[in-house]
């Protein structure tokens, strides 16, 4: 059981305080003379000196070697001195209370409430590292999470149990989009809740996210974890794990559909790199640690569904590609783990379109399982495929127009240019607080598409085009 006011849990009465700190280097603390300390154990660090910064601090054991333990201190080692620092170990990897009490709360990146409310109680507690889900017990993802964002719902439908990242660049409104998705997504009529884990957010961004999510939080459907850019960097290593641990319990014990938004994973990976560099580990690509793939996978893979259970965990990581480079290790490794990607484009953004999604570069690999007859609407998959095909054609036409001039295009090609403009303005573009239901989205899609003559719509079953034209008249 978890003590009421102990999160992250305070040192147990049985545990020993050690004071033999031998080394302090970057975020690392090396303590000598310990016994029985296990790898990955959680620790509490304090100091007897006055005014030495945050206390108590928290740490995780990175290595044990005979009577030495190397500990990463989440709040950093600033202000700590060798002779006045003490450390005690909890005897096990970090566990947190889990339960519905988290919903409606706002906490820092370590899970401590910062909303002035009472401490969080749990039904029971669970290790933040989680356990791997037996792949033989997984159910393939199915059915949609509807985000109310046309560009996503129509073309890269988010499926319950999927992991679908948003790839963005600096300066694009990915955080606004992530917050909007968190604020307005639903799983139809089924119980749904959202966990938003913000990592390395500026205070202005954090406040904006908080304002967007206020209503949902007040309704008790949302947990907000915020690690701001000036909060301890290493705390970010914990933030997504807390989010996912709470989510797994809500989904698989309490039968809810849980959407976990992780923003920004690039900040998370930087924290990981900082620890790795401090430990003098062999750097991998762009000096990120060689285990970045496994580490990211240990987060993203916690999405899914389990056979015989009704809940699901859907993960939406948001990451900024440094210098817009999709081959950078963070987006690259993320892309290898996740099931598709939603790509935001600076070009689309420059045309004043929100959200600036590039539908051709985006893909939801599991869309087939989340959309279509019995899931969304009968015409959804065909309509999406035809629209994307037309968009690809329109893009070629636009390139041609840049060489030969739009006036030299034939009538059909002119219509494609018209279609592309309509597509962005009437379908993709929407207001920041606007939630479009799926019917609205797909109807708009039809309206935009039927700018093109019926003979161009070869991917749609002919009956479908006629049925729609009749309906429209």
């Amino acid at each position, binding site marked *: 059981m978890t003590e009421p006011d102990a999160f992250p849990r305070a040192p147990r009465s049985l545990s020993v305080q050690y004071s033999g700190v031998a080394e302090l280097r970057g975020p690392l603390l090396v303590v000598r003379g310990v016994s029985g300390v296990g790898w990955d154990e959680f620790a509490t660090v304090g100091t007897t000196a006055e005014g030495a910064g945050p206390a108590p601090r928290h740490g995780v054991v990175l290595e044990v070697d005979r009577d030495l333990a190397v500990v990463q201190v989440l709040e950093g080692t600033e202000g700590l001195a060798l002779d006045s620092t003490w450390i005690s170990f909890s005897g096990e990897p970090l566990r947190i209370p889990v339960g519905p009490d988290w919903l409606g709360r706002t906490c820092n990146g370590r899970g401590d409430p910062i909303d002035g409310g009472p401490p969080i109680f749990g039904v029971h507690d669970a290790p933040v590292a989680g356990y791997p889900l*037996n792949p*033989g*017990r997984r*159910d393939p993802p199915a059915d949609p999470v509807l985000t109310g964002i046309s560009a996503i719902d129509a073309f890269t439908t988010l499926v319950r149990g999927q992991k679908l990242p948003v790839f963005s660049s600096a300066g694009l409104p990915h955080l606004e989009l992530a917050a909007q998705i968190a604020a307005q997504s639903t799983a139809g009529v089924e119980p749904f809740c959202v966990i938003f884990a913000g990592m390395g957010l500026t205070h202005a961004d954090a406040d904006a996210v908080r304002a967007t999510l206020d209503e949902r939080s007040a309704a008790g459907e949302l947990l907000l974890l915020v690690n701001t850019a000036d909060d301890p960097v290493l705390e970010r290593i914990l933030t997504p794990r807390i989010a996912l641990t709470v989510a797994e319990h809500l989904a698989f014990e309490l039968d809810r559909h849980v959407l976990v938004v992780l923003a920004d994973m690039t900040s998370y990976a930087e924290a990981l790199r900082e620890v790795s560099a401090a430990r003098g580990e062999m750097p991998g690509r762009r000096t990120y640690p060689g285990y970045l793939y496994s580490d990211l996978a240990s987060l993203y893979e916690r999405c899914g569904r389990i056979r015989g259970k009704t809940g699901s965990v859907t993960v939406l990581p948001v990451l900024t590609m440094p210098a817009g480079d999709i081959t950078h290790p963070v987006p690259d490794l993320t892309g290898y*783990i996740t099931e598709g990607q939603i790509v935001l484009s600076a070009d689309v953004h420059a045309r004043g379109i929100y959200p600036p999604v590039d539908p051709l570069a985006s893909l939801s690999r599991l869309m087939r399982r989340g959309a279509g007859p019995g899931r969304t609407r009968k015409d959804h998959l065909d309509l999406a495929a035809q629209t994307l095909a037309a968009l690809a054609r329109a893009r070629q036409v636009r390139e041609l127009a840049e060489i030969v001039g739009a006036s030299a295009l034939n009538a059909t090609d002119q219509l494609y240019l018209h279609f592309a403009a309509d597509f962005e303005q009437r379908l993709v573009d929407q207001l920041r607080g606007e939630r479009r239901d799926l019917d609205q989205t797909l109807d708009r899609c039809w309206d935009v598409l039927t700018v093109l003559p019926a003979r161009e719509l070869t991917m749609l079953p002919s009956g479908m085009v006629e049925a729609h034209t009749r309906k429209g008249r």
Partner: protein
Amino acid sequence: MDSRVAAGPAGAPAGRVIRVNGPLVEIEGLAGVAMSELVGLGTQGLPAEVVAIRGRSVSVQAYEYTGGLAAGQPVTAWGRPLSAQLGPELLGGIFDGLLRPLGAAPTWLDPSARRSETHRTWNWQPMLTEGVTVSEGAVLGAVPDAGGLDYRVLVPPGVSGRLDRIAAAGTYAAEDPVAAVAGCLVGFSTQWPVRRARPVRERIYTEEPLLTGQRVLDALFPLALGSSAGVPGGFGTGKTMLLQQIAKWCTADVIVYVGCGERGNEMADVLTDLADLVDPRTGRRLAERTVIIANTSNMPIMARETSIYTGVTVAEHFRDMGYHAIVIADSTSRWAEALREFSSRSGALPAEEGYPAALPSALAAFYERAGRVVTLGGVEASVTIIGAVSPPGGDVTEPVTAHTQRFVRALWNLDHELAYARHYPAVAWSGSFSRDAEQLGVWYSRNGDPEWVGRRARLTSLLAEADRLGDLADLVGAGSLPGHERVVLLAGRLLREGVLQQNGLSANDAHCSAEKTAALIDTVFAVLDDCESLIDDGVAAAEIEEIDYSPLMRAAQETPPDGVDGVAERRERMLAVLAGLR
């Protein structure tokens, strides 16, 4: 802990943990422990393998999460290398990297949770009688209902002599011995160290195709039984989809699918798909000829490293029974990364991009376990290996991709541009290769398809020529090319869209027989020949281009997988339309 890994001999020398750094653990006090031997760490007995011995200190790699493991905790030596238990329960099952059944494991893989022990029985059908003299690899009997094929019980390697005892036909518990050969008890299952190749009588080099059911592979970059192929492709190039198609439709007898550091949802997908598919050969579920080894990316990293070897060992086990087995490993890059992560923790000097210097030799040794052989029992059988490679950032010069190319017989390069244009399977015709093609051509000409070699040659040159002219047309406009060259461009389009693309979601097109593949290609060639002669006769290229070729383009999707007649009918229709232009 499952008995197959955990059980150690009583009274084994006890050591102590002295250092823990993730999966790298150092221990002391285990005198006489050997390299590659298994030890049990801590009170839970987490399995770990010895990787270095320096005086009294021994380094091991742990196969489970080592959270909570502390210096001073006990270590037990198990006195044997990492071994897999190979038995009839493999068929249709799902296992982790150490070949422990996941079906019997809990939903959450907590290393301290106990796995339920299942007590199964098998039907035994003896094939020999007591008193005869048998040699290693001989078939003693079979379990007819183990899965989609007969599971055979063999005389173990290194054992021969008088068959002292053999159980009568009937039902026996899985752990019961069914025979005794020269004092050695033989049961349904056998143990084998996964890092050691199972012995064979000899390797043979006659080649026979392994059909994948994918046209681009079978026609352009074919694979022989017992050969090996690498499949490099960046993310989103449809690598997993292609491998799953091969798993479902290839002509091997036993399919071992290794999900190595990949997505859990994908494994769920494979499982559901295979459980739904009816095996065209047996009428039972396709899953019953399949063994799935799943070590997803969030499962312990060192077990990911072993899963590749475990997979090949399982395939060799079925090969020894006389079957053609195939190992499909997705992805070998994750295996290499596990090697790298561990060597970096153990402070080994890094070679290219931080990978250990032994990476190329480890890759070579892995692909060398493929081969067509005469088994110890004297029958021809094979292990074929297909390994996916996930180059970071799509960079094909990175070490795993670069070295894999050196050791495989065929390379199926997945191209990002093709995938972006939704051309699936996105196997690039430039940059891919098959070193089996020449010999397979000989096989085809002896086995009823003498045209095969010529067809492949024409296909290759047309595609290359169409690509070259396509680049030119992008500059000068297709309209300014001469008629014959415009026909080549048309040929490229017909071959790409009507032959090479294949829709994995269509029941007709998910797989394609060799005959239908040949018929489709020949139809395109016949159409082209007529187009060429029309040009010679002065018909304008534009007129030829404007013909509706959709009957040809849709032939693959609209005729059944072996629908040669349907293709022939469309061929006549197209040729008639062309004749109308004269």
